[in-house]
């Protein structure tokens, strides 16, 4: 797996395909591999790029995780790969990261997909962070992940996919995981939403209680060129309803490219 050295961290990434760039940004406890199915569906016409954020997957954690640092890592990583503009697909914790990225480097954002995410998610945040901090003092990431999967994934999710979710969370460093919770739960990123001028799709699972539909609707209302799509899933539609999830992602990206190449759009 290739790496780039940015901002004192070594980031692992995957890059596959040819064509306009699409950058996938993973959720809390995720890593680049979570996007392999979407990459397989797109790599014949897009250059697909996904980084493991610092502290996740196989990337290092020499400093701390913050929304701003993760956005800066993404920018530096794309600079290192020579990517000037891209479509971005951001899942859950990556929503605030992309809002921060866009606020600084909006010219790089051709389009944006915000999946099961939010501009503000402070419901029960203090208690959620405190309980996770306490549990992770004695609990392994594996046990934390197994209980998370049991609590959050829809019961009909195949065990093979449950195991993938657990395995990816196991790769997360506890410090990064807790820093991420502190960084994204509580702060209000609403003021950054109107700065998103690129076409945006806000995708949410109808059964999502982690980032409910009303939080998606807030994003849609606050981002000027946003529209909303709802699928039958909870927070992890990428695993719970892969067919619907992939269809929305692929259709949106193909539509953006088609619009960019039609004569009227030139």
């Amino acid at each position, binding site marked *: 797996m290739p790496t780039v050295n940015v901002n004192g961290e070594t980031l692992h990434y995957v890059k596959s395909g040819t064509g306009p760039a699409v950058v996938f940004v993973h959720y809390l406890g995720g890593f680049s591999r979570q996007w392999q199915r979407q990459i397989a569906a797109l790599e014949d016409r897009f250059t697909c790029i996904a980084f493991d954020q610092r502290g996740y997957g196989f990337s290092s954690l020499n400093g701390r995780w913050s929304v701003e640092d993760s956005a800066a890592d993404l920018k530096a990583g794309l600079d290192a790969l020579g990517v000037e503009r891209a479509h971005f697909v951001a899942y859950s914790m990556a929503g605030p990261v992309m809002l921060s990225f866009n606020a600084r480097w909006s010219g790089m954002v051709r389009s944006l997909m915000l999946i099961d995410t939010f501009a503000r998610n402070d419901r*029960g945040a203090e*208690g*959620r962070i*405190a*309980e*996770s901090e*306490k*549990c992770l*003092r*004695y609990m*392994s990431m594996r*046990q934390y992940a*197994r*209980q*998370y999967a*049991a*609590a*959050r994934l829809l*019961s009909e999710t195949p065990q093979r996919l449950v195991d993938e979710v657990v395995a990816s969370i196991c790769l997360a460093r506890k410090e990064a995981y807790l820093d991420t919770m502190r960084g994204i739960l509580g702060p209000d990123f609403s003021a950054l939403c109107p700065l998103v001028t690129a076409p945006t799709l806000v995708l949410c699972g109808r059964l999502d*209680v*982690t980032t409910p539909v009303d939080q998606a609707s807030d994003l849609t209302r606050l981002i000027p060129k946003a529209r909303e799509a709802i699928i039958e899933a909870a927070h992890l539609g990428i695993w719970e309803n892969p067919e619907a999830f992939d269809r929305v992602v692929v259709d949106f990206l193909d539509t953006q490219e088609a619009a960019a190449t039609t004569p009227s759009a030139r």
Partner: protein
Amino acid sequence: MPDLDVAPDGRYLGGDIPFGYALWGDFLVEAPAELEACVTMIRLTRLGHVYEAIADAAEAQHGVRPTQAQYDGLIASVRRRYGPL
């Protein structure tokens, strides 16, 4: 029942020992069968089962039976961490 208190370095300081763990010296260590049962307990709670049925299932499937207090403690912690079930 006193809440669990754990030092930042993982040392047990006092309070209820969570289902799935045992105290060895100053530290909580994993009780594997109980941790397997925890996953079953969370899943069955989401499916609407109540304590007695869940404890029966844990005993039948994993050979361990949580007390009502241990079950309540697990589910309360899970709800605080991950939100409503």
